[in-house]
């Protein structure tokens, strides 16, 4: 017999719910968001490789991965379109939870405790910390810059859209924004690896109860308080 209160609110395995276990697990991302995330991630990696090939001659050999220079030039903007669409579906789902709040200011001001791993000194956090929010908004704004400047530089279809002096600026901004997004991408991947137990949130969709307790206690307490607990597993 399951308790009506918890079954009423908690669909089996739905996002932001606790599986009582043991061990306790928390569902952080449903399959939709995970698919979306990986489409975006793969696009970003392909864009990075094809873009770097055209950015610096020492990396031109990367064009071989795409079947030569002509293919690289052709496919790069199309992957950009895919990334833009898939990222902004994700954006629509996540932006509300990424609005900065007071806790984020405190968290960011104690960045040495973050890096030192002394999370007991930090405020309890909701689903996202300031670092994740920075990555989220950084990616979102850079992707907009990249798609706009990318379209201006897309010779095949938009070569006549803007003047040549404008296109020069677009290409400069595009390459600067690309360097910035690659740095943010590295930060994102690194943080996910360094904070052990994070990556499974995007593979299996779940994290351990301890992970949620350590890094996002407010989020965990909120789910528990609302009875979003699936007792069957």
């Amino acid at each position, binding site marked *: 017999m399951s308790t009506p209160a918890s079954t009423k609110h908690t669909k089996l395995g739905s996002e932001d719910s606790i599986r009582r276990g043991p061990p306790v697990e928390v569902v952080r991302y449903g399959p939709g968001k995970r698919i979306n995330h990986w489409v975006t991630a793969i696009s970003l990696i392909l864009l990075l490789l094809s873009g770097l090939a055209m950015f*610096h001659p020492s990396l031109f050999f990367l064009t071989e991965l795409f079947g030569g220079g002509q293919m690289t030039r052709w496919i790069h903007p199309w992957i950009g379109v895919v990334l833009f669409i898939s990222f902004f579906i994700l954006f629509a789902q996540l932006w509300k939870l990424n609005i900065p709040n007071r806790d984020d200011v405190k968290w960011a001001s104690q960045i040495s405790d973050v890096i030192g791993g002394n999370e007991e000194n930090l405020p309890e956090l909701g689903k996202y910390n300031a670092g994740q929010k920075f990555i989220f908004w950084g990616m979102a704004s850079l992707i907009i810059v990249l798609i706009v400047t990318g379209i201006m530089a897309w010779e095949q279809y938009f070569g006549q859209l803007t003047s040549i002096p404008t296109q020069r600026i677009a290409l400069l901004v595009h390459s600067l924004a690309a*360097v910035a997004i690659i740095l943010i991408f590295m930060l994102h991947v690194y943080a996910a690896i360094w904070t052990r137990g994070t990556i499974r949130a995007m593979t299996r969709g779940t994290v351990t109860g301890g992970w949620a307790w350590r890094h996002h206690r407010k989020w965990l307490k909120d789910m528990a308080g609302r009875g979003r607990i699936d007792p069957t597993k």
Partner: protein
Amino acid sequence: MANTMDSPRTAVSNPPVQPMETNLTQRDLIRRSATSELPPPERQLTPVAKLIDVSKCIGCKACQSACVEWNDTNPEVGENVGVYTNPHDLTADMFTLMRFSEWINPETDNLEWLIRKDGCMHCADPGCLKACPSPGAIVQYSNGIVDFIHDNCIGCGYCVKGCPFNIPRISKADHRAYKCTLCSDRVAVGQGPACAKACPTQAIVFGTKEDMKKHAEGRIADLKSRGYANAGLYDPPGVGGTHVMYVLHHNDKPHIYADLPDNPAISAVVQTWKGATKYAGLAVMGLAAAGTLLHGLFGRANRVSKHEEEEAKELVDESVEHVEKREEDA
């Protein structure tokens, strides 16, 4: 003759009849796009130039036809919009274009019909080559010719942004960049450019850059003696000089000739993009990658402790009890 003369001296003479090896080879490259370690050329070819005397041009477009003929291109049949400029712009199939401007000279109140043969200037410091990301898609020979090697071109159009003269065009058919070659394939075997050879008034002449400058001097003196006080040679220093030069009767204002740039130079934006950004960007990304890798290997990871897992379990158990109690109460 052929072995003593590295570059043709004129376009007027008929081509040599004996078979000839091409003399523009990989060994003669002084620049190659997206290539940092180009071996220095083994010899220095005599720099060549094409001189276009705007004051002698009658706008017959024999050069345009000769260019189409020699390069075997097929420009689309266009539409007449009431000007002689035809087609309306350079295209991937039209490497040179007579641009007609009607200009009223404010000093004399005379209408002057200015005709300028537009096309690649073969810059000593070529912006197209600087911008090109594809190794060997654009090369510069020691005789000054800047040539596009279509097999290596990826069709990105960066050369279009790099060029201060708005010359290269990307073909919609094969997605490769095209422009005037200065007839490199003719010059390589001792012949002058097709356009120069076809010009009926000798408004286009070809030879060594030195000879062309000398020839221009004579033309300029003649123009000055006939009242064109500002006549001069257009060999813009901002791009290191060019291997296609103009004699202009109004050299103080090149822009009246269908927007010929007054002081062309590679745009500072392009210089930043292809200079600081390219090198600093790569360095920053490399350092960041190395830094994260090192920290990842040797740094202390952020791990969840057993204790924290227990805390979570307690919290969840408590909440479940709480919920059950509430339900019993109800």
